[in-house]
């Protein structure tokens, strides 16, 4: 056991792991985090707390993670390389561990120009940091945990014990480099991997075959990413505009059909598409979990946390495993 987090225990138990996502608000009000944590608690093994996702200022990942932890939801603190240098990162890692956080997902982070895909003002003129990249951040966590050393070599009296994660975009450009990309993250010390959203299951499976041939699935726990689709428009947008996501036409057509069935009734169209989206989600979860080498799913119901309970139950992934308190 590397850190004894609930997520690590579920993965070690051999049961499929389920993680979800909790996006902190653009507000100093803790109640939204608390509310979302209460909604997700019991239906996932841990929930990712995003770190100013889409390059927009929100409650920090660490603070929101502590709020979630107090509600009894195990957090996966996310840490991007965009906003901190290695001094700030390690200080935050020590502080977060002191506050009881045990999982950390390392990410490059959306570029500051992203500004919620242009929907918000954001801070496109901000200076980014990128002192280290994802592989290097993973390596820093590992060195702190396993050697009790800071990146610079100074000793840590008490080492932070993290279950170390990294993201992976299996279907991103350049496609034939992506397996090597994962290998570098695993070689750096990633204990678990959460992937970008998967819709094109055939392509994902062909990438996973390469991963199995490299033996990487035995050295890290790969959780397949599931992004819950809400509408035909959302699927089309993700297919055309979200990097590393391709959506098969059959899925877009299914959603379009659900929308068309409502005729002119907009409320009904929303309902029918959401119902179809939940069905598609459950099917994708099964297809991803049936793929050899996959150890779980990372379900993102963006601004739709209430959907998680039904999805997890319908997918036969409820109740979640529990472990005796040490």
């Amino acid at each position, binding site marked *: 056991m590397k850190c004894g987090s609930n997520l690590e225990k579920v993965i070690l138990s051999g049961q499929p792991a389920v993680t979800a996502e909790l996006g902190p608000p653009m507000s100093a009000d803790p109640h939204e985090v608390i509310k979302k944590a209460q909604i997700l608690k019991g239906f996932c093994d841990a929930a990712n707390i995003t770190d100013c996702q889409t390059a927009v200022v929100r409650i920090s990942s660490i603070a929101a993670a502590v709020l979630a932890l107090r509600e009894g939801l195990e957090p996966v603190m996310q840490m991007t390389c965009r906003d901190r240098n290695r001094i700030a990162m390690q200080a935050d890692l020590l502080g977060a561990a002191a506050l009881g956080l045990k999982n950390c997902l390392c990410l490059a982070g959306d570029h500051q*120009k992203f500004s919620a895909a242009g929907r918000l003002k954001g801070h496109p003129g901000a200076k980014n940091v990128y*002192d*280290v990249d994802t592989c290097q951040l993973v390596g820093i966590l590992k060195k702190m945990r396993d050697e009790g050393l800071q990146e610079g070599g100074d000793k840590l009296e008490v080492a932070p014990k993290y279950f170390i994660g990294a993201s992976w975009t299996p279907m*991103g450009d*350049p496609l034939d480099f992506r397996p090597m*990309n994962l290998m570098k993250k695993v070689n*750096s010390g990633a204990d678990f991997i959460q992937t970008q959203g998967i819709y094109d299951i055939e392509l994902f499976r062909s990438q996973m075959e390469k991963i199995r041939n490299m033996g990487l699935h035995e050295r890290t726990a790969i959780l397949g990413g599931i992004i819950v689709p809400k509408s035909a428009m959302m699927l089309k947008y993700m297919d055309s505009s979200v990097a590393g996501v391709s959506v098969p036409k059959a899925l877009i057509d299914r959603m379009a059909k659900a929308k068309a069935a409502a005729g002119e009734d907009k409320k009904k169209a929303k309902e029918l598409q959401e119902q179809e989206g939940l069905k598609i989600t459950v099917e994708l979860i099964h297809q991803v979990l049936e793929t050899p080498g996959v150890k779980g799913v990372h379900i993102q119901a963006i601004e739709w946390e209430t959907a998680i309970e039904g999805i997890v139950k319908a997918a036969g992934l409820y109740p979640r495993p529990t472990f005796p308190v040490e």
Partner: protein
Amino acid sequence: MIVGTQKPIDEIWSMVRDSKRVLVFGCNTCVAICHAGGEKEAETIATLLRMRASQEGKDMEVNYLSVMRHCEPEYFEPVMDEVKTYDLILSTACGVGVNFLADRTGTIPVYPGINTSFYGAVQQPGDFTELCGGCGNCILHLTGGICPIVRCSKSLMNGPCGGTKNGKCEVSDEVDCAWFLIVERMKQLGTLEKLAEVLPPRNWSPSTHGGPRRIVIEHLREIEQQEEKKG
């Protein structure tokens, strides 16, 4: 070469508007090639400033001058007596030239007429691209001759982020993903497996993060000092 772009004339005017005698001082090397600050551009700026002064009823004399290089003293020493007769110098050299001249003009201010943008190359006439960040610790032998420090929007050292789409960067679909180019180039060179190595956190102190940089070539300094003694 160093690539720059001319500052907006309104901004330049706000710097010079209260001066009586202004010299627009061009540099005929890098910034002339990129049409930002050579003699031709210095002349144009001087003309625009004269027009503006006359529009606003200002009594201002504006002249222009240029030398081959602003980064070595011998190039501008022959004209320094003339330069020092002005009460403001608008340099259209790169930032190196502005700093270097400002150290030598005593009470006369030296202001920038251009924005110094990057180290780049001429892709085609009128199209300049940044290709080097001057980071002080070159790794181009590891990345197929394509610089991830300055050509990747996140300066990533170990491969692309998740933001690559159709070979383009998440910052703009007009920006090539450097890591896409690196992977393609290394496939072409047959050296893709080199990328499997994880590059450790970088020492950024040879870059701009270690304080101002200076390089002294000892043997050249010694020869120079011996000759000074003889002289």
